[in-house]
């Protein structure tokens, strides 16, 4: 009987499928969400081995030319710099002079670059300004300046259209052996490269003055390299600086010298290791989840492991390594993998539990750093100019005091850098062959965009389904009530009825608007002089609540349709919210996948569960009470400050948490223009639909999202 009806209507299969999904929206959302979370947990299992995709790179095909000769020359530089540190007076200027002297003795072109460190400040409208409008500095920072030293080797037969950059952060004031060692590595490579004949790209060595942080000098140099301000009257680099008392110092120009487009950049650092072997740490995450081309990591990994015998590691969440549930999850996957193997020996899903834990810890860290949007090192500055860059941090198992050990270290480090540069030098095109969108689960394993997007899509899929089914339900409800009334007024009534969702959209928009206001508030709060983070935070909360009340008074309360309205009303509101939420997440996943993924993990369950508290209270049944509790817990957890504190508590223990921490965190995020900032204000609008008095934060800032899209595109 039913079948004949359907066949009479001749609905197309896709429509039938949609109807089926809508009618079982609860089941669909439960299945999809579970599958999404499961898919995310499965990612370490699905990771593939990395491989060098660009054939032109040919890493390690030429034998290393770096010899002890260069190392002993580098040792001379290290010795001279270390001697300077023993008498700190005047070490700053002299160390620049020494480095510049060594560079120009090699035949490189040397210049100094003077910069003012930019204090971390809120620039709420920074999105609007183009890259070439120079950022105005406050007068207070005028007196502070740092000096970068830049040496350029021109490729013998190259045409100077491309360059490879080598960066060594160096703090002349309190730089220790660590930093001079990284200078030593760079110097040994640099001195070799002045003599080789195979060089096709220019080499730029930037000794970044890291007394104001490692990021600031690199970013300042890149800014002046790419977008110089021609009309700056009191420009820094015109004034010649006669600080040094030797003649050589005054000969170095302060004008910026250029080479061509940068093909790749390597940032070198040395750390005291506490491990059993020499390791090399790779840091790749740049601002807003941008990653360098995977090939760059691949060649470093290949050369470090197969040529220099270093152990390569990428960042991990160490607290995850010891966590029990990850371990047991790993065991589950291990046994699952074994079971799958018995079914079909060709399916290689098996992964040992230990590997799973390692992979999960690395993946979580990778996801976290990409989501946070704060670069993990000075290499982040390069990515803003579309230059592939990574930070390499060498760590040694014993101290650097023994000379033979140190020479050995310099030789290995130098040969690694030489190999990487030689590989990049082989490149005819810019890096494009391998992946830009990936998550690392180990230095040699990665999850590509095609895989991790599935998990995200599953997680987000219920949103449109639920929104549509809610809307469909209200439509089903209302026409029946209309039919009871007179048939004459139907025309106008049904038109009004079908545009009813506009009202809910208005509410959603107002809440979003309020969210945008709240997210701009810190800019004004930060103008308050002499305030500590805790008071700032409380002022922020107070102002937010105040503005919410004002908004409600102006816009929402006159209609006061939230309360005492038929059941369909809140359903439409919820469906509008969910749709806007879906659009927001979809956009965000294009800009920064990790942010969208974490956001979806927090928000999707809450968005789906949301139900007016009042109705639940009235309901009195076990089911509605359970739902109420779930809603409350989810609502609290996904309230951004709460999320932050819970997360921090899990990692570091609940003891030392202060309210001001959140403010500091927000401040840093803003300073880095992080897209995650959007989520701070990302609260549950759904709670708003359930009960307004349970006031709370807020709304996805879609408008801001669009601006960010423009900024980072």
């Amino acid at each position, binding site marked *: 009987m039913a079948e004949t009806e359907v066949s009479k209507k001749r609905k197309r299969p896709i429509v039938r499928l949609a109807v089926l999904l809508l009618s079982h929206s609860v089941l669909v959302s439960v299945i999809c969400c579970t599958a999404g979370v499961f898919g995310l947990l499965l990612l370490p299992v699905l990771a593939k081995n990395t491989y060098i995709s660009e054939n032109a790179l040919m890493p390690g095909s030429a034998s290393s030319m770096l010899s002890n000769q260069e190392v002993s020359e580098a040792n001379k530089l290290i010795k001279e710099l270390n001697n300077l540190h023993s008498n700190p007076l005047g070490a700053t200027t002299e160390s620049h002079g020494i480095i510049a002297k060594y560079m120009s003795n090699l035949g490189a072109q040397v210049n100094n670059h003077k910069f003012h460190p930019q204090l971390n400040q809120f620039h709420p409208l920074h999105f609007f300004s183009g890259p070439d409008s120079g950022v105005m500095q406050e007068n207070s920072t005028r007196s502070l300046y740092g000096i970068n030293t830049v040496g350029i080797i021109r490729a*013998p037969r190259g045409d100077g*259209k*491309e360059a490879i950059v080598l960066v060594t952060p160096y703090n002349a004031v309190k730089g220790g052996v660590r930093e001079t060692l990284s200078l030593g590595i760079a110097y040994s490579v640099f001195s070799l490269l002045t003599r080789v004949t195979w060089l096709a790209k220019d080499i730029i060595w930037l000794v970044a003055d890291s007394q104001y942080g490692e990021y600031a000098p690199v970013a300042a140099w890149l800014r002046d390299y790419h977008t110089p301000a021609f009309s700056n009257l009191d420009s820094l680099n015109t004034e010649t600086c006669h600080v040094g008392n030797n003649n050589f110092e005054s000969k170095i120009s302060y004008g910026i010298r*250029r080479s061509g487009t940068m093909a790749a950049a390597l940032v070198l650092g040395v750390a005291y290791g506490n491990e059993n072997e020499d390791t090399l740490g790779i840091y790749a995450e740049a601002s807003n989840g941008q990653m360098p081309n995977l090939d760059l990591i691949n060649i470093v990994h290949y050369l470090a492991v197969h040529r220099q015998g270093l152990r390569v590691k990428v960042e991990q969440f160490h607290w995850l390594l010891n966590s029990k549930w990850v371990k047991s999850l790993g065991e589950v996957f291990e046994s699952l993998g074994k079971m799958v193997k018995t079914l079909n020996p060709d399916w290689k899903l098996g992964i040992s539990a230990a590997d799973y834990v390692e992979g999960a810890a690395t993946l979580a860290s990778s996801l976290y750093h990409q989501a946070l949007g704060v670069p993990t090192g000075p290499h982040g500055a390069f990515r803003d100019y579309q230059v592939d860059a990574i930070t390499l941090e060498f760590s040694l198992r014993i101290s650097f005091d023994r000379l033979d050990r140190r020479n050995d270290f310099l030789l290995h480090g130098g040969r690694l850098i030489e190999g990487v540069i030689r590989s990049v030098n082989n490149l005819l095109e*810019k890096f494009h*062959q391998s992946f830009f969108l990936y998550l690392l689960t180990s230095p040699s394993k990665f999850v590509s965009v095609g895989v991790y997007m599935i998990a995200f899509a599953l997680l987000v899929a219920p949103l449109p389904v639920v929104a549509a089914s809610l809307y469909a339900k209200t439509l089903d409800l209302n026409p029946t009530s209309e039919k009871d009334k007179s048939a004459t007024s139907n025309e106008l009534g049904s038109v009004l009825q079908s545009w009813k969702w506009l009202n809910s959209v208005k509410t959603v928009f107002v809440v979003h608007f309020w969210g945008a206001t709240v997210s701009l508030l810190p800019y004004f709060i930060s103008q308050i002089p002499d305030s500590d983070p805790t008071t700032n935070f409380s002022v922020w909360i107070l102002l937010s609540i105040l503005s919410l009340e004002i908004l409600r008074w102006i816009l929402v309360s006159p209609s006061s349709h939230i309360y005492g309205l038929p059941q369909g009303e809140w359903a439409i509101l919820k469906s509008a919210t969910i749709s806007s939420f879906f659009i927001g997440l979809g956009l965000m996943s294009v800009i920064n996948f990790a942010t969208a993924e974490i956001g979806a993990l927090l928000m999707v369950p809450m968005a789906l569960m949301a139900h007016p508290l009042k109705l639940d209270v009235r309901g009195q049944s076990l089911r509605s009470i359970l739902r109420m509790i779930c809603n409350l817990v989810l609502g609290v957890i996904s309230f951004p400050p709460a999320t932050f504190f819970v997360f921090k508590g899990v990692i570091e223990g609940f003891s030392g948490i202060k309210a001001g921490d959140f403010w500091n965190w927000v401040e840093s995020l803003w300073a880095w223009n992080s897209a995650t900032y959007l989520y701070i204000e990302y609260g549950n609008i759904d709670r708003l639909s359930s009960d307004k008095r349970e006031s709370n934060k807020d709304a996805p800032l879609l408008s801001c999202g669009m601006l960010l899209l423009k900024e980072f595109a």
Partner: protein
Amino acid sequence: MAILLSRRSNLLAVVVLLLCQLFLYATVSSSGSVLKQGGGEEFSEELLLKPFPDRKVLAHFHFQSRAPHSSSHGRHHHLFPKAIAQLVKKFRVKEMELSFTQGRWRYEQWGGFDPLSSNNAKPPGVELWAVFDVPQSLVDVYWRNLTHTLSGLFCASINFLESSTTYSAPELTFKPSFGNLRYGTLPREAVCTENLTPWLKLLPCRDKAGLSALMDRPSIYRGFYHSQRLRLTSSESGSDEVDSGIGLDQTLTVVLQPSSWRTGKTYSVETNIQPSWSISSIFGRNIPGKCVIAKSSNVYLQLDNGLVGELKNLERENAKYVANTFESEGFQSNHAFKISVTPDKVFEEVDNLHGKSTSVIYGFSVEKYSDSQPFDLGLTWKIPVVWSCQQAPLHASRFLMGSGNERGAIAISLEPTESSEGLPTSHIIDGRCELRVDIFQVVPWYIKVYFHTLQVFVDKQPRAMADVVDKIRVSPSKDKVSPGVMEMILKLPCGSKSAAFSLEFDKGFLHIDEYPPDANQGFDIPSALISFPSFNARMNFSEDEFLNNSPILSKFQHALQRHHHYMHSICIVFWIIAQCASEAC
């Protein structure tokens, strides 16, 4: 049977005899013409060597062939390459220059003011310009045909210059012309031996004898700069007896590092003593005498004025050498360096307007050397000398601004060099001291330059364009038809510390088949040209008969009135839409 055979052999013998006679006659007649060539065609070869401050050595080969105008001599040539003569005749070429270059001329270290660098420093890749003696409407057709011919002649992709998107017709800044000049460059053309071999084929002795025998391929391509150039001038007969006919100047300019890097290690950083070198150590060969049919064959060693000045200073310091003045000793064996061969002639630059120090050129004639006793010139340094080459008044650099896949800006920045203060600057017009600078820049059509966004900054202050730009000629690009050309004549106030120009552009959206292979390499914007017309790039030598016979030295004396400087090409990477076809997506 036997009879038949013998008859055949007889016949064969007769034919062979006849052929032999013919051949003999031919060779005798040709050698005879070589001997009596004095009135007609002539060929001379020269080599100039010059040490550079950064421990490198410049070797500049110059081969000059001249032929009287073909109408008077029919179509037969003895020395002059027939291919070139035909080309000149067929395409009515009045003047032409073709250069193949690898590497950059380093203006800061190798100088940019002397006639040598301003004539021979060329942009990387291929550069071709030609002036035609035809009506303006036909110039483009002749240019297209010329590029194809040259392409075949030199085994290079010069034929890509036929497309109207690649060449332009400068009017203001490049050379005085009347609409019949065409200029085109291929910034990414690789230069190799396959281009050198046809170039050598134009020489009467090829590389078998004479100075060109030095051209050991590995050593000349190992250098830091390599530029092979061919310049043609032709004039109608009758106007001037000396200049009429076709002149072909072939030059090869290489900058080499005398010692290999292995041995270069041994010098310590503290003593900046220059490496000693000899012809055989640089090239790995000696000069086995002159090319027999060359009118003259000379080697010169030039010490530029910075070096001579520095040497004189050192001389003065060492009182005991006071007796050895440069003039008397000829400078060849003093406390600073030693030349292994006694020079035949010493030329000193005279009356250099600003200089106390003048450059010195030693001349060596190769004629008396032979295979058994090859010519090998060596220079041995005894004490460290530090000097710098004379630089052009302004140091020009061009770079890209901005990042991203959509838009950017081209910036040109000019900064005065140290030497410019001492120069007899520029012209005083209306009581104002001004420096004239010409800029010529070609931009391919897919870089959509907005010429109205031209911004001018002098001394870090924005200026109105009319204040600085005397004349400007802009021809905007047409999509897929012609490149954008900008020519500017600037008048910069003297003593300005810096000048900068910026032009914004959008990157064009290309159709997928408009991308070249290896599209992610990006596109090159050809080198821009900057010249200083108010400066004379010439050297004055005391009048000497010898000078007029020497192509290099007479070039020095009657150099171009312009300083040409190239701002090296820059590379713009376009976002490739088709990229996702690769595995990554």
